[in-house]
């Protein structure tokens, strides 16, 4: 129990009349990068919101760092980066971070640390509105890193970035994990799977595989994560006792952004 950063039991989430997540079980170890992969609309954001504790859940439980998700002490220990860069456009990068640091209760010097970590020192005095999408994303990430939370929940942090920036970000994630931070990172770019320590493949509100990158390729006998994912979906929908409702695979390849 102590070694798990996140434990979900029978998690159910309803949105309107439909059940988005129905009876999800999950265990995420500490101190690693956990990739949450799946097509847009598969419930990644909903699951992450449940972990952060901002999602109303219909049943089951989510424990984070051995406490109920969203409970007051966790608000200092969990950093959350939403899919859209949630920062103030009419403030400078530094003013944004300074405010979030004070809310987080982090020392003022922490602002410089996260600026440096996310390679934003040169942009510190620019208005957030004038930043490129990738830079705004990094400000949002920097804000989540304030106060060095033990768990970072990052919702599609690399979406819409060019390959170089994406590689930079993954380097930042790796360094954080080396320092002992647990990272739950969602993505719908299957190539990013190989950069994670563990993989959770999600589809239609369920975890269809909980594995490591090597194991994923080995067990499916495929060369790329994308193929492996397709293979698992085939297995998942054909296998005995599996869920019967399946959608065509084109759904999987959709590149649209998630909800919100």
């Amino acid at each position: 129990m102590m070694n798990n950063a996140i434990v979900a039991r029978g998690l159910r989430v309803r949105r309107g009349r439909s059940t988005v997540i129905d009876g999800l079980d999950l265990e995420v170890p500490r101190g690693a990068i956990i990739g949450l992969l799946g097509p847009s609309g598969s419930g990644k954001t909903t699951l992450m919101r449940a972990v952060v504790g901002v999602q109303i859940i219909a049943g089951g439980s989510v424990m984070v760092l051995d406490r109920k998700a969203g409970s007051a002490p966790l608000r200092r220990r969990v950093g959350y980066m939403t899919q859209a860069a949630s920062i103030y456009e009419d403030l400078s990068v530094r003013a944004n971070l300074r405010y979030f640091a004070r809310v987080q209760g982090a020392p003022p010097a922490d602002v410089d640390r996260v600026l440096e970590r996310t390679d934003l020192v040169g942009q510190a005095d620019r208005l957030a509105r004038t930043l490129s999408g990738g830079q705004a994303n990094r400000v949002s990430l920097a804000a989540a890193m304030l106060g060095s939370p033990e768990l970072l929940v990052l919702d599609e942090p690399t979406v819409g970035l060019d390959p170089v920036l994406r590689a930079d970000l993954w380097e930042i994630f790796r360094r954080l994990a080396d320092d002992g931070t647990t990272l739950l990172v969602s993505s719908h770019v299957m190539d990013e799977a190989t950069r994670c320590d563990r993989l959770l493949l999600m589809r239609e509100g369920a975890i269809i595989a909980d594995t490591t990158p090597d194991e994923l390729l080995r067990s499916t006998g495929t060369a790329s994560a994308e193929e492996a994912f397709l293979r698992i979906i085939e297995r998942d929908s054909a296998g005995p006792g599996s869920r019967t409702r399946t959608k065509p695979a084109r759904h999987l390849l959709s590149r649209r952004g998630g909800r919100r």
Partner: protein
Amino acid sequence: MTPMRTLATAGRVLLQIRSDPRTIALLLVVPSLLIGLVAWIFDETDVFASIGPAMLALFPFIVMFLVTSISTLRERRSGTLERLLSMPLGRGDFILGYTLAFGLLAIVQTAVAVGYATLVCGLTIDGSLWLLFIVAIADALLGTALGLLASAFARTEFQVVQFMPVFVFPQILLGGIFLPRPQLPDVLEVIGDWLPLSHAIDALDAVSTGDEDDAFIWLRVLFIVCWIVGAVIVGSLTLRRRTP
């Protein structure tokens, strides 16, 4: 809730407004221009002397309603509110932070408007000036509190702007500017008597004529404060940490 986080929020809101000089200029100049216009319209009559004080009640209220409802709606839509509520920020920190920041703005706005109305437009204030400020600030805070509430029911900026007529116009119509409240049909008079802006208008009238004692004005202020507290409580209930 902690003073540090409340003050940090107020400081952040003021910093955001500072980066938008045009909004500051509009906030400070527009009320005076409109008061000037009203004074000019009634130049040949003595009407301005009786409705001028009410004008001072209207502007802080309307402007703060709009500014607050739109900025909190922006927080809800941009995801910054969700981020803040996933952090150790109390809901009270958020609301009080906004109230403080806009309360300060309201003081400056009222100072400019009162200065213009008395020095340029010739409005006479027989009662105490600082009571007038207190009423105007209570008025501005009322606008802030109601704006916060309105933003919870709006999904878009268009809707929020439509809420202004809903929350504000009936109060102007029933407040006694167009027709003194005792002359309204009974039902409307009762409704008008319970609306906060009516009391702000009464209080400012009393301050400008100096006819009533301070207790009369403080009672009006107390009534407005009750509305503010009510709106803030209901408004804070709409700030949910967990959302569907």
